[in-house]
């Protein structure tokens, strides 16, 4: 999720909420206003009612007062005057109250009119009473009659006026109040609606955002789960990949090597060399990638065995000397005398580091020298810190690239890969291998002058003196035997062929089976000197087969595991299942040979070999080199061919003899040709090929029958001998 959009959403939502807040504040304000207004109008309504009521009270008081006075005057009964004083005071009190309540000018005016009318009425009544008190009763009655209630009517009129005014005012207040409330109500609605819309809007935005986040989160979760899964699968994948890649590489390389040994013209030799070089290169790159992955996955194990650094340097020197010689570069090794005789550490990894660095130095140096130095730097916590330096006079590394060359896929020059090849992983692996062994590496370089790689590794001192002879003893055979038979259990037909061909080349007899079960069966029935056991096979894999051979068959025959599983611990696993040794695929001819030699076999000396090869010297006429090459170690095919030969050859010889008797030159020629074709498969052509060819050419020209007869005798004799040999061999095989 982009940062800007997150900020946007925050601003949007804050703004919306502020708007909603404002809207609700307005609503609150308007409601307050409405309530206040209502209170004011209510007071006004109450006041208005009060005024009307008091006006009525004034009217009633004055009317009562006038009536009581009039009744007293007319009757002369003083008792009838009772309460008249209260009436007057009530009228005056009410009037005062009304004045207090009056607010508008109109009210005041009407009130003064009522006030004066009341005053007039009271004054008039007082005059009547005064007149009556003076004894002028008649005059008082006359005054009353004359007034005829005029004063009371005036008051009544004023009261009415006031009442009318108050009624009108009340109506006005109610109306105004109504419209105001309605307005407030509308505004209220509008503000509420606005607020609600804003809130809904912001909620919408929020939900949209949350939705987006949920989707992204889901994606992230899935990605994480996948990553975790792939991490788990990585180890398995590495094992499989190494097997899958190495198996075909094994075949390519193996057959290219075999092909290289056949008769080839210059062009073909060049091609084969290219295949070999490319295959080796590819294999090295694959090894690099596998190694690097192993290191990254934490699967690389550092061994702890006792070894001699000096001896290791010698073997590295021997390994790389041809390459240096090829490029005409001096390769110098300088071993300091202070080096401990033997140390404890991982010789394989040290070799790998040195071969990589020296290989690089040779690769990037066109003239001059590569020098390798090993010296004891110091002792640290009982460890001997050894410093190795590989210095060359090559193209060097640009200063700005020095930092990067130890990173993976980095080569100093962008065209390095193109020009010099390699995966770009070599130095990254070297660095990690050095670090895995608790060491450090650094590089100094000047462009066009050369580079110098220096690394230190701390090694524990070995107390057991390293025996020089140990490595040689591996080569010396435990069982000296020149004629041996090997059982090959391998399911891949190409590997079968490759191993079969190699063994055939070394004159080692072999049987091939394609699963562990058949291997066990074979071992039950036949005697072998060694078993080559592939680990990954159908039916019964190598581990099970080995266990079966040791535990059920109780055989102590050497078993050599063959596997493309190059993961650490594989060798240990094989040994734990009772296997004797371990051969990593792709199978290298030299490794296979030395392993076989180690456990079961003495290679025949050249003298013995030549004796075996000279087929005729031991009196044999048959030679199955061609047939075997054709068969590609398919024993069924050779057997069948031999059987066919035994059936065909006598028949053809009979036919030839008859043709010769009949002097049928055409038939002679045809049959001779046919026989020539037949005998090739048992190697008889080396003996009588020429004779048959001569016979053919005579027959073609229809001449020299006597010569043909002589030639036939030779052919017949040799063929008969061959048949005899084949029959003998058959008997030997089937006792």
């Amino acid at each position, binding site marked *: 999720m982009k940062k800007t959009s997150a900020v946007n959403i925050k601003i949007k939502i804050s703004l919306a909420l502020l708007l909603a807040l404002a809207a609700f504040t307005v609503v609150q304000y308007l409601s307050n206003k409405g309530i206040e207004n209502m209170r004011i109008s209510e007071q006004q309504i109450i006041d208005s009612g009060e005024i009307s009521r008091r006006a009525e009270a004034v009217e009633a008081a004055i009317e009562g007062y006038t009536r009581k006075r009039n009744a007293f005057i007319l009757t002369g009964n003083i008792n009838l005057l009772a309460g008249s004083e209260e009436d007057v005071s009530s009228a005056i009190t009410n009037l005062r109250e009304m004045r207090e309540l009056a607010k508008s000018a109109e009210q005041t005016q009407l009130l003064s009119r009522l006030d004066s009318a009341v005053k007039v009425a009271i004054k008039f009544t007082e005059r009547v009473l005064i007149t009556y008190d003076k004894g002028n009763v008649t005059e008082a009655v006359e005054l009353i009659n004359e007034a005829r209630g005029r004063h009371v009517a005036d008051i009544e009129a004023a009261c009415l006026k006031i009442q009318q005014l108050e009624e009108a005012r009340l109506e006005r207040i109610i109306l105004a109040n109504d419209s105001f409330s309605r307005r407030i109500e509308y505004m209220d609605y509008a503000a509420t609606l606005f607020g609600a819309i804003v809130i809904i809007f912001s909620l919408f935005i929020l939900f949209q955002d949350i939705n987006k986040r949920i989707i992204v989160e889901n994606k992230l979760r899935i990605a994480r789960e996948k990553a975790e899964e792939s991490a788990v699968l990585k180890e398995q994948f590495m094992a499989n990949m190494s097997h899958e890649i190495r198996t075909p590489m094994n075949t390519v390389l193996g057959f290219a090597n075999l*092909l290289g040994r056949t008769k080839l013209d210059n062009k073909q030799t060049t091609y084969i060399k290219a295949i070999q070089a490319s295959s080796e290169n590819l294999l090295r790159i694959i090894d690099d990638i596998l190694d690097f992955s192993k290191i990254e996955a934490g699967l690389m194990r550092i061994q702890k065995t006792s070894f001699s650094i000096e001896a290791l340097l010698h073997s590295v020197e021997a390994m790389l000397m041809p390459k240096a010689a090829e490029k005409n570069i001096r390769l110098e090794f300088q071993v300091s005398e202070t080096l401990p005789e033997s140390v404890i550490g991982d010789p394989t990894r040290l070799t790998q580091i040195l071969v990589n660095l020296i290989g690089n130095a040779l690769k990037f140096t066109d003239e001059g020298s590569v020098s390798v130095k090993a010296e004891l730097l110091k002792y640290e916590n009982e460890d001997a810190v050894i410093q190795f330096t590989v210095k060359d006079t090559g193209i060097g590394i640009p200063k700005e690239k020095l930092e990067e060359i130890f990173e993976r896929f980095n080569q100093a020059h962008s065209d390095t890969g193109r020009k010099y090849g390699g995966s770009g992983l070599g130095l990254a692996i070297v660095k990690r291998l050095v670090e895995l062994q608790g060491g450090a590496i650094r590089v100094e370089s000047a462009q066009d002058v050369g580079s110098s790689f220096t690394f230190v590794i701390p090694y524990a001192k070995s107390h057991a003196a390293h025996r020089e002879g140990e490595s040689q003893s591996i080569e010396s055979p435990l069982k000296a035997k020149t004629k041996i038979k090997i059982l090959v259990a391998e399911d891949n037909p190409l590997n079968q062929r490759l191993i079969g061909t190699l063994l055939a080349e070394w004159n080692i007899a072999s049987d091939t089976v394609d699963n562990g079960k058949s291997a066990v069966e074979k071992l039950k029935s036949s005697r072998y000197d060694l078993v080559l056991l592939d680990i990954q096979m159908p039916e019964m894999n190598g581990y099970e087969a080995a266990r079966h051979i040791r535990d059920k068959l109780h055989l102590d025959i050497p078993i050599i595991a063959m596997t493309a599983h190059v993961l650490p611990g594989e060798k240990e696993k094989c040994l734990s299942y009772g296997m004797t040794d371990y051969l990593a695929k792709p199978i290298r001819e030299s490794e296979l040979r030395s392993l076989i030699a180690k456990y079961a076999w003495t290679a025949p000396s050249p003298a013995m070999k030549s004796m075996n090869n000279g087929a005729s010297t031991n009196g044999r006429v048959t030679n199955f080199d061609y047939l075997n090459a054709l068969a*590609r170690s*398919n024993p069924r095919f050779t057997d069948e*061919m031999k059987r066919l*030969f035994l059936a065909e050859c006598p028949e053809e010889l009979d036919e030839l003899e008859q043709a010769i008797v009949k002097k049928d030159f055409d038939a002679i020629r045809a049959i001779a*040709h*046919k026989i020539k074709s037949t005998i090739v498969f048992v190697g008889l052509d080396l003996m009588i090929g020429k004779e048959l060819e001569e016979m053919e050419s005579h027959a073609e020209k229809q001449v020299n029958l006597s010569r043909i007869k002589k030639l036939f005798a030779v052919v017949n004799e040799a063929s008969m001998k061959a048949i005899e040999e084949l029959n003998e061999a058959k008997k030997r095989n089937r006792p």
Partner: protein
Amino acid sequence: MGYQFIKFNEMNVLIVEDEKLARNALRHSVEELGHCAFVAETAEDAIREVETRQIDFILSDILMPGIGGLSLVSVLRNIHLVKIPIVHISALDNEQVRAHSRQMGADDFISKPFTITEIAEVMEKHAKRVA
């Protein structure tokens, strides 16, 4: 696990060879190379095979009873208008025979005794046309 990286396209290969051992050897070689082998003992049989089967490649002897390998090619090319690769395998190896074989319409020539490599090479060389 099957590794098929060496095997190029499987073909139906017709082997024309009158001699039993050579025929068997050729059949073995062809099968060893991962192809399907059909056999004919004479050129006449071969023509019948070509008429009835989907043949992709022919390996033929030259010296055979009947019309022989050279005529076989000529017949197949000119009468049956067959375009598939035809290779002669013969112990009769000289410039004259090779020229004749080419003339008749054969694509290549292998001299007897043949090796499995020669068969493989010649098949690979001409198989492209089949595909």
